[in-house]
């Protein structure tokens, strides 16, 4: 509004009649009629829903970021072995502790009916599944089952909840007993499968770096051991044989396509190693897995 009329003393002039004048926006919104109470109730309900979604999106973003950091850390591993190098294991553990606290905050928001209501805002669970399946593969060279993964995530959530409760000194007494009752985050089959789709990409990256750096593709080369090429082939066939997931078919086909490409890249690596690997003098590149940050620096200089 550009302004208002003043009387001869300079005070705002009351408008007479009011008809035809433009009413300010606030006044129009405050119109009361028989439907106002209904809309007031609805407003409260919608606000609650929007606030919850906001909280979930924020937590999800943080969990995604931490999971990505775990994956990057794991990509510095050079060899599949039941025990990860110490500095890597401790880094992963500290990230997992952070994630567990966030999961404990997330869990109560997505119980029961809300689990699927906010499923679209929960892409962090795919990312987490990717990080955890990758860690599991690097340790055992097997694919973790959804049940085991779920148990792990549940456990992680409850640990986070228990840790948060212990910080809160007023209620330490009961909490050890209640840990089992704390709500947990559960992964759906979609979260798991999309996580495993992405796992193939990580395996491809792992195979490529470890081949480039040590010429071994990250495996013990003893006879009778499986190679990453074989594992990738198995995962590839696994996804080709599975019926297409029903949720978002477009996304499924996209991920399947990326998986196919990863399989082909690793095949090529296997071929190269078979042809030229024997030309490498054995052991000319040291095992870098224990060396830590210094090695990272050297790599960059090359």
């Amino acid at each position, binding site marked *: 509004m550009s302004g208002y009329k003043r009387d001869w003393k300079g005070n705002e002039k009351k408008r007479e009649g009011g008809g035809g004048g433009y009413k300010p926006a606030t006044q*129009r*919104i405050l*119109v009361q*009629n*028989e*439907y*106002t109470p*209904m*809309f*007031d109730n*609805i*407003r409260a*309900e*919608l*606000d609650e829903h*929007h606030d919850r*979604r906001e909280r979930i999106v924020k937590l999800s973003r943080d969990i995604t970021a931490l999971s990505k950091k775990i994956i990057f850390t794991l990509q510095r591993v050079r060899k599949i072995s039941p025990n990860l190098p110490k500095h890597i294991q401790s880094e992963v553990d500290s990230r997992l502790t952070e994630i567990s606290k966030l999961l404990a905050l997330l869990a109560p928001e997505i*119980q*029961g*009916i*809300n*689990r*699927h*209501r906010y*499923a679209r805002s929960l892409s962090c669970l795919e990312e987490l599944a990717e990080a955890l399946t990758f860690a599991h593969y690097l340790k*055992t*060279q*097997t*694919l973790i*089952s*959804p049940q085991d993964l779920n148990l792990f995530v549940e456990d992680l959530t409850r640990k986070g909840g228990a840790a948060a409760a212990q910080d809160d000194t007023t209620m330490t007494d009961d909490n050890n007993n209640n840990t089992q009752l704390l709500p947990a985050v559960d992964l759906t*089959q979609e979260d798991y*499968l999309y996580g495993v789709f992405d796992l193939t990409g990580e395996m491809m990256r792992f195979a490529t770096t470890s081949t480039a750096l040590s010429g071994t593709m990250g495996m013990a080369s003893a006879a*009778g*051991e*499986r190679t990453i090429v*074989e*594992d990738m082939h*198995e*995962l590839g066939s*696994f996804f080709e*044989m*599975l*019926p*297409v*997931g*029903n949720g978002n078919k477009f996304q499924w086909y996209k991920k399947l396509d990326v998986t196919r490409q990863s399989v082909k890249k690793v095949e090529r690596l296997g071929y190269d190693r078979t042809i030229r690997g024997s030309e490498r003098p054995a052991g000319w590149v040291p095992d870098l897995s224990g060396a830590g940050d210094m090695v990272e620096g050297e790599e960059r200089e090359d």
Partner: protein
Amino acid sequence: MAPPMIDPALFDQLRSNIEQDTTVRKELDQIVDDLNQDVAFTQGLLSRIHSTPRFKYQSLFTQVEPALTKQTATISKLSNFASQYPYYKYNHKYTRTLQEAITNLLLSTWLGAPSFSPTPLTPGHLLTLDAVGSHLQVPVNLKSGQEDKFHITIEEYLLALINVIDELSRLAMNSVTLGDTALAVQISGFIKDLHAGFQVLNLKNDILRKRVDSIKYAVKKAEDIVYDLSLRNLIPKKEVAEEEGHDVKTE
């Protein structure tokens, strides 16, 4: 010897889960198809309000009501089936159809279709979300902590209400053509009241926001009609008073 990369049992388990999901979706599609048909038929019948003068509405409603009853029966079938699964997992498959079913219900009761309720409703009465739930005999607005089963959400009710507003703004014009200027004035008041109600809501950038934004065009359309009428002195005296009182009552 290391264990295999993928436990063979794992594949079977995942496959059977996906197959089960597919079966559920197929069965659901069947029910939603039926509901679509019922809703479309009812909608078609209701579209005759645009060419029927108000004093003949009662005979139109004798046809509409069985159609509404059929629609309700299919919704209860849907409700029984969908309640077996997490509600929001499959909700997207039928939410649109459900909205239109609710639109039919709201529109015909507002226009004065007398039955389904033990106490006959007067024309101009808007069913609340709770009333819609009790008409259809399904729960409404289930939230965290409540049972995860079929229900009508707030969003579905609001979107249905916006459909009603659109339809009524069209009816305002056609009722003038049929010589019923009083109905146009009544509709204009109703739409303005609802518009004020929707402005109370804090909306996010989603489908609801987009549809709510469209209400102002319906308001404008209805107001233009009233303006045209008042310019030509075609508004009956009683409606003028009501329009100014901004609180529309009937009889």
